[in-house]
């Protein structure tokens, strides 16, 4: 869990914050003061993963190595709970304060992460405003829908995401029914292509392949997947908005809502 002390936070707002994780990078860039954040991770400048490439290029990049980070003399380091344990432990041993953020496993947790980041950076009210904004816009999407077309998420190596994941909930918020639930997936897991085909989804949403091919991603182009997607390949792709629990998920939901309308069109 997050370690913080609400009262002291405002007075002792950290002045030199280094972020080592893509999701903390983006939340920090959204909530920090000018000059408060001194470095973000290299991947924040990668357009396939980051929704804030332009902003990220304004910050010096770090590769998440303990030595590199230490030499920046931060007074606070933001990391993900899955960031390289050895690096994080090393920084803590060197006496640096590290706050670890869990990934957002659902839309409800996006608000939580925003609040936690605000507290960590010493801007709780700013975070509250952003969270309230997020809730309002989300509510717009969460209105009841009568017709839920069936969709499947399918990534490299046949991975899918169920209803207890951020991606699954984006899909649900956009008005789809996720076939992963029928197939018995709550979280993420490998779904056999046959099972996916037999579930007969109305569309399949895959991730964008990385440069230079890999065999793992080949399966996303399998004739069966192409047949299931029908004529809508380009619209049905995840991108950087899906990766982290940030307000950008709303854009992902908007994209999926547009896809839903296309699917429902006769």
């Amino acid at each position, binding site marked *: 869990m997050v370690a913080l002390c609400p009262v002291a936070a405002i007075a002792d707002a950290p002045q030199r914050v280094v972020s080592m994780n893509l999701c903390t990078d983006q939340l920090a860039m959204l909530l920090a003061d000018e000059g408060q954040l001194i470095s973000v991770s290299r991947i924040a400048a990668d357009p396939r993963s980051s929704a804030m490439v332009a902003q990220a290029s304004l910050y010096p990049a770090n590769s998440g190595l303990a030595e590199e980070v230490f030499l920046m003399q931060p007074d606070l380091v933001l990391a993900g709970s899955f960031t390289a344990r050895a690096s994080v432990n090393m920084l803590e041993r060197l006496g640096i304060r590290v706050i670890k953020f869990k990934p957002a496993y659902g839309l409800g947790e996006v608000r939580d992460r925003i609040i936690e980041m605000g507290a960590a950076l010493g801007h709780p009210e700013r975070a509250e405003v952003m969270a309230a904004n997020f809730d309002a816009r989300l509510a717009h999407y969460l209105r009841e829908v009568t017709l839920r077309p069936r969709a499947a998420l399918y990534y490299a190596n046949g991975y899918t995401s169920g209803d207890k994941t951020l991606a699954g909930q984006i899909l649900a918020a956009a008005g789809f029914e996720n076939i992963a639930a029928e197939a018995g997936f709550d979280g993420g897991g490998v779904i*056999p292509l*046959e099972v996916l085909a037999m579930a007969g989804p109305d569309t399949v949403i895959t991730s964008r392949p990385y440069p230079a091919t890999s065999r*793992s*991603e080949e399966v996303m182009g*399998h004739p069966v997947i192409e*047949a299931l997607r029908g004529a809508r390949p380009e619209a049905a792709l995840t991108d950087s908005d899906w990766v982290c629990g940030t307000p950008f998920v709303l854009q992902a939901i908007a994209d999926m809502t547009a896809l839903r309308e296309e699917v429902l069109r006769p």
Partner: protein
Amino acid sequence: MTRLFILLAGLVAALFVASLVVGPAQIGVAQSLRALVAGGEGPVTLVMREIRLPRAVLALLIGGSLGLAGAAMQGYLRNPLADPGLIGVSGSAALGAVLAIQTGFAAGFAFGLPLAALAGALAGVLLVLVLAGPGGSSLTLILAGIAISALAAACTALVLNLSPNPFAANEIVFWMMGSLADRSMVHVWIALPLIVLGALMLATLARGLDALTLGEDAAEAMGIGLRRMRLTLIFGTAAVVGASTAVAGAIGFVGLVVPHLLRPFVGAQPGRLLWASALGGAAMLLAADIAVRMILPDRDLKLGVVTALIGAPLFLHLIYRTRREGL
């Protein structure tokens, strides 16, 4: 001999059908076969024709190829330890394939992938013949195989590691262990021409391999063109192993186990062993692929693991026998 042929062909046919009706989707046997043949709307047809059919066809083609190539190499080298996987030909083919994929050559040109794997396999076969050609002992052959396999594996790992794609580094497992999961009819079409061509080339070796039973001098004096045989063997093996590895990764031991098991049933004659091993290899790989889907269906058990579990103990036994009899 016709009895053996009928038995093996029947076995292959039965395993082929079995392979078509086994899978994680719960589809009844009758329904699945009907959808395969008659077609019709719905996901069952899609599953049968685009997922299960290519898988079964590839298992048959690749198993047959590996059995045939193993028998041909053993016949030519007059050594029962020759197997395309063991002596490094599959590994070199995998290197060729990986290079083609990582440089984009495979994406640019439909047959780029199997041709690149062919080139890799060619290099592998040539190296084996240079290092441990006929007249070389078993020891030399195995050492050559170790050297070539190690070199090919190291280079493959290097290429994958240097790839900008984050998934590439983990794919070494597929290339080294082989898998037929999620293959499509596209893979069948790109592999088919080279497999057919290579198989036809290897089939022409039957008479020459029989004559080689008496040694090279006697065979040549009877009119067998040894140089031509060597070239045919090199290109035939490279074509067949290259195309197979390009679509399924390196699968070993089929070319070792199948000729060994079937040799007593063909009277040890190398010419007959060619077609028998082709059928036997197809049967073995079909069976292994069925096993992979029935045992531990949730984990992605690699095909090469099953063939290695069958083949490695046999290999040990053959080595032990070689030591005792001083082959």
